[in-house]
């Protein structure tokens, strides 16, 4: 009976939209004397439509909404019939913005799930359904050549991160990674990262213990602490270096750093501390000499040094 056609069903916010509605000949014969086609945007009648009749009796009306400022609305083509306005066709109009370039793309390798998780900032609200896809390919060196494309990773609804499963990864080789954002008004891509998943392994902090006696079983020297630490178990196969920081419990942010330290020791004597004082100690490690990220600092260990 009635059919709406649109210049576009999705436009930039504030842009014009032109719509036409044609009422077929057999519909007009539904005992309707020639009629003005009315347009409703939501529930409001819209002025300014131009209407004419084709030789074959078809009626057509065209309307332009100069500045469409709703993110979503229904445009209805109507005719008066009986006591109220009859809707003959309805089109859903949407307005918003093309996707901005996704920023701050960063990735880390999760050793427990062996998956590479990348996150990004999606940019300002577009008001339109926008699909993000994490794209990547296997490569070498600085990712100038694409060897095999990897299946696109589609994040769960509204998430701004995605995890590429182990079976799609080629460890110890470079891979090119970027994010693509797409909606009805356009597509944008983030700058490309080039990284080896193993270079972005996320390390959990090491575990730090204080021992009550020195190796020969004697109590620790005044102003000294006997320490032992172990890197995070799943990362034992990775060569690492660590660093220790300590400060008296009552002080604020006055850390003393002891670095570099090996990732494995049987026993380590830390001296030069004030006697009979409670110290707070923390440790972190990083893959080394191969590249990697520092782990977070370990939970604080609190220990009192012996009297003089």
């Amino acid at each position: 009976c009635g059919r709406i056609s649109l210049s576009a069903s999705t436009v930039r916010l504030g842009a014009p939209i032109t719509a036409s509605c044609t009422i077929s000949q057999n519909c007009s014969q539904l005992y309707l004397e020639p009629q003005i086609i009315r347009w409703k945007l939501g529930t409001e009648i819209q002025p300014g439509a131009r209407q004419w009749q084709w030789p074959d009796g078809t009626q057509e009306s065209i309307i332009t909404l100069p500045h469409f400022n709703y993110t979503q609305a229904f445009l209805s083509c109507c005719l008066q019939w009986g006591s109220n306005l009859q809707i003959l066709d309805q089109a859903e109009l949407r307005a918003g913005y093309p996707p901005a370039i996704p920023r701050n793309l960063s990735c880390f390798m999760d050793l427990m799930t062996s998956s590479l998780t990348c996150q990004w900032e999606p940019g300002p609200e577009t008001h339109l359904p926008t699909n993000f896809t994490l794209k990547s390919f296997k490569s070498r060196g600085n990712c100038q050549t694409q060897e095999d494309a990897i299946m696109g990773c589609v994040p769960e609804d509204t998430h701004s991160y995605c995890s590429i499963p182990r079976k799609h990864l080629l460890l110890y080789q470079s891979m090119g990674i970027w994010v693509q954002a797409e909606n009805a008004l356009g597509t944008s891509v983030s700058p490309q990262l080039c990284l080896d998943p193993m270079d972005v392994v996320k390390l959990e902090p090491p575990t730090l213990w204080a021992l009550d006696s020195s190796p020969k079983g004697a109590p620790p020297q005044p102003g000294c602490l006997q320490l032992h630490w172990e890197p995070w178990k799943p990362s034992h196969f990775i060569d690492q270096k660590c660093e220790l920081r300590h400060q008296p419990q009552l002080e604020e942010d006055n850390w003393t750093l002891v670095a570099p330290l090996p990732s494995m020791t049987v026993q380590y004597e830390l001296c030069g501390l004030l006697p009979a004082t409670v110290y707070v100690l923390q440790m972190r490690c990083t893959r080394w000499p191969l590249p990697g990220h520092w782990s977070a600092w370990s939970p604080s260990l609190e220990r009192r040094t012996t009297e003089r």
Partner: protein
Amino acid sequence: PGPASSLPQGFLLKCSEQVRKIQADTSMLQEELCATHKLCHPEELLLLGHSLGIPRAPLSSCSSQALQLPGCLSQLHSGLLLYRGLLQALAGISPASAPALDKLQLDVADFATTIWHQMEDLGQAPAVQPTQSTMPALTSAFQRRAGSVLVASHLQSFLELTYRVLRYLAQP
């Protein structure tokens, strides 16, 4: 004896409950269509319904002046099959409305079975269930949504009349 002495009390009670259940389902669908697609008034879609040829189910044999039980049960059954067919033709209107539409379809189908079994028990069931009449062609998403609003509205009137018939049949 009353107009429906041959109908068991349990059957009438079940039918009344099924009618109320379907009325509640239909209201849910109507609320969903209004909220999601702003199609809230069937009276705005009468012309479209006319041109699409969306049928209504007759209940002429069930009028209290000229109640004719076998014919009434048969019209109830055929009407329910018609509305079930219409609801199936409207599948896919939108993800939001799908659950309400599925639930409504299943409840309408089950009510039709309740009526059919009773017709069989009364020996009034034809050998073969009536086939589904042809469904209107709904070619656009809007026509399916508008069709749903109209079918829901027709179904509510059908159920309203059915409920009055059941109350009349339940009179001692």
